[in-house]
């Protein structure tokens, strides 16, 4: 089963929610819809499901026009942010409900519910009612109901957003494995770049109702087609610094000049915006051509195992994403190292004109 959204536009009360989206999803593909809140993710999923028809454009399933076909006549399942289950039904009956509706034989139902429950690690909870379950178990039940029938398209609308992050880690890994063995199209909406990376597959970046870029997740991450894609697909956000490229050097502030990478010499001299990933900046030099910058600490934000360091250079702010815990004081002067060979370059329109080539080094010590 393939799903093709052809030049879709959707307007609600005169306000455009989706404009000009053309997206072809391949059979068996896992697709992440990445975008901030109000980017149009839910609207797009509702259109895919057939919960409402688009204002403009066509939707094709396996080449067949289903634009006007309602959700009841499309073979789709949906999992929502909220844990939606039938409160008066046991976990077993919740999961079995789509099969009962489709009038499958009891033995067949029993077998499929058992399989799905085992996959989702809720086989010991089948006799319980939803209100007797934790949030994670409730969402597993809702997922079980979506997965138990052989839907052609399964839509997940930020399904893990209301769960503890440890549970999210676990469920995310399970979901990825689950879909390896299924042949339906999965679409998974999230606001979090790191979730998209963890899920893999393909990613479509949505911004203000428009599709910015679609392709294999790692490729979209490494080769954003413009400044907006690069910004949407990075947390902490990619650092963007305006600067000037001359014949053979780059300057951000007309004071410090540094030699540019050979690959950048083919670009016409002029003003550009340079992007550097927060994870490519460091507190110790990592390559001979790293540029040393004197900066002042704004704030060190610490996650359990990583540090996001906000610093100020006289001409621009920067964010560093460091492994491990680095406790640095506000307003402390420090030196950081800027990788001159890992620059993204965007032209004045915001389109990508250069992406860095990732070189693997000889040592893997962390």
């Amino acid at each position, binding site marked *: 089963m393939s799903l093709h959204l052809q030049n879709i536009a959707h307007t609600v009360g005169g306000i455009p929610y989706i404009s000009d989206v053309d997206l072809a999803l391949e059979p068996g593909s896992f697709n992440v819809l990445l975008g901030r809140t109000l980017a149009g993710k839910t609207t797009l999923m509702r259109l895919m499901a057939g919960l409402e028809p688009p204002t403009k454009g066509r939707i094709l399933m396996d080449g067949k026009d289903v634009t006007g076909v309602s959700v009841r006549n499309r073979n789709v399942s949906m999992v929502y942010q909220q844990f939606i289950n039938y409160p008066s039904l046991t976990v077993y009956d919740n999961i079995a409900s789509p099969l009962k509706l489709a009038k499958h034989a009891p033995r067949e139902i029993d077998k499929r519910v058992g399989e799905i429950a085992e996959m989702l690690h809720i086989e010991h909870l089948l006799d319980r009612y939803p209100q007797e379950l*934790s*949030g994670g178990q409730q969402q597993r039940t809702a997922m079980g109901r979506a997965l138990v029938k052989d839907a052609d398209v399964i839509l997940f609308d930020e399904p893990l957003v209301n769960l*503890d992050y440890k549970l999210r880690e676990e469920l995310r890994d399970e979901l990825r494995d689950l879909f390896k063995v299924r042949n339906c199209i999965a679409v998974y909406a999230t606001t979090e770049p790191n979730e998209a990376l963890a899920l893999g597959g393909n990613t479509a970046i949505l911004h203000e109702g428009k599709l910015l870029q679609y392709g294999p997740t790692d490729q979209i991450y490494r080769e954003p087609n413009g400044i907006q894609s690069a910004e949407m697909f990075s947390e902490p*956000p990619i650092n963007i610094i305006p600067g000037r490229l001359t014949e053979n050097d780059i300057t951000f502030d007309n004071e410090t000049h540094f030699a540019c990478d050979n690959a950048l010499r083919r670009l016409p001299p002029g003003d550009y915006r340079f992007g550097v*990933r927060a994870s490519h900046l460091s507190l110790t030099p990592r390559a001979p051509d790293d540029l040393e910058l004197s900066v002042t600490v704004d704030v060190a934000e610490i996650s359990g*195992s990583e540090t996001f360091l906000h610093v100020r250079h006289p001409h621009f702010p920067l964010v560093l994403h460091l*492994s*491990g815990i680095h406790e640095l004081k506000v307003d402390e002067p420090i030196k950081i190292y800027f990788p001159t060979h890992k620059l993204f370059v965007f032209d004045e329109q915001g389109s990508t004109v250069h992406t860095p080539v990732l070189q693997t080094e000889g040592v*893997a010590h*962390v």
Partner: protein
Amino acid sequence: MSEIVLKSLAHTYSANPQSAEDYAIRHMEHVWHQGGAYALLGPSGCGKSTLLNIISGLLAPTEGDVMFDGHRVNELPPEERNIAQVFQFPVIYDTMTVYDNLAFPLRNMNTPEYRVKPKVLEVADILDLTPLLSRKAKNLTADEKQKVSMGRGLVRDDVTAILFDEPLTVIDPQLKWKLRRKLKEIHERFNITMIYVTHDQLEASTFADKIAVMYEGQVVQFGTPRELFETPAHTFVGYFIGSPGMNFFALNYAQGTAYFGEQPLPLSDRYLRTLGRIESNNVKLGIRPEFIEVCTSAESDTLAVQKENLQDLGTYAILTFSLNQQTFKARLPEDHPPLGETVYIRFPDDKLSLYVDEYRVEVDHE
């Protein structure tokens, strides 16, 4: 000024508690010092909401005392405790302007207008709400509304502690950065005890100087983000902090050699000496994914293991491998060398932690 002390505190929702499992809070001693930035971190169901409600006065503890600056406040209702609370969802008056929302707690205490105004303007300035003062609250974005909620806690001079209950839940990830920074600024500017309750390690470590990690009704570690990362005091902290969490594996000691299953482990003398003295059967080693060294060829003290999966997460990669039929995770830098099916790993001696009956024990020094 407010120092909050919890003395021999315990709480149960059961009328007739039989065992430790019946307690939501299990016998706890804890001190929150005046002016500290603290977090209360734990998964849902660990008792952190119960503890928060006991501190704020919404709940009277079954046993023990809550002391504010040496005074027992068990029976004082929330409004007499001079504590402000900021909830998950902004609590503001939609029909009032931002100014009137901020002024409300002061006017409610019959503060004269000439004293209301400077305080409202000061707080609005800190929270970057000045341009919005005349706007109706209902027209604000989620992050602006949440800032107004915080502002309502900050205007009152008599507030000595602010309790935050997952205040960034409704905020877009890209904006969370700014609000986290803002919270730190506020803490530095006001000499107020702040306790931030969350299940999210990033929220907790970013905000707090010291974190109380709660697990099954007890604080299992009260430490800095670095301590939680480098020396987790309990296996739960190792698992819960860090993404992915710590790897743990059971250890047997026999005739001067330490074994993981059938696998002898190359451990230094100081570990072996310590192990020789331990009587418990529940002995584990823990190592963070960040600290496992991964080599492409055999070196001294490396173990050959089978690669199971290599997941590209953009800024880094997670290698999953199996050793003695158990799955381990190791974190690799983005530019790691290509790995074959067999990889060679090393557990550096100084990065291991030893756990006896789930609690960390110090290993002998050389």
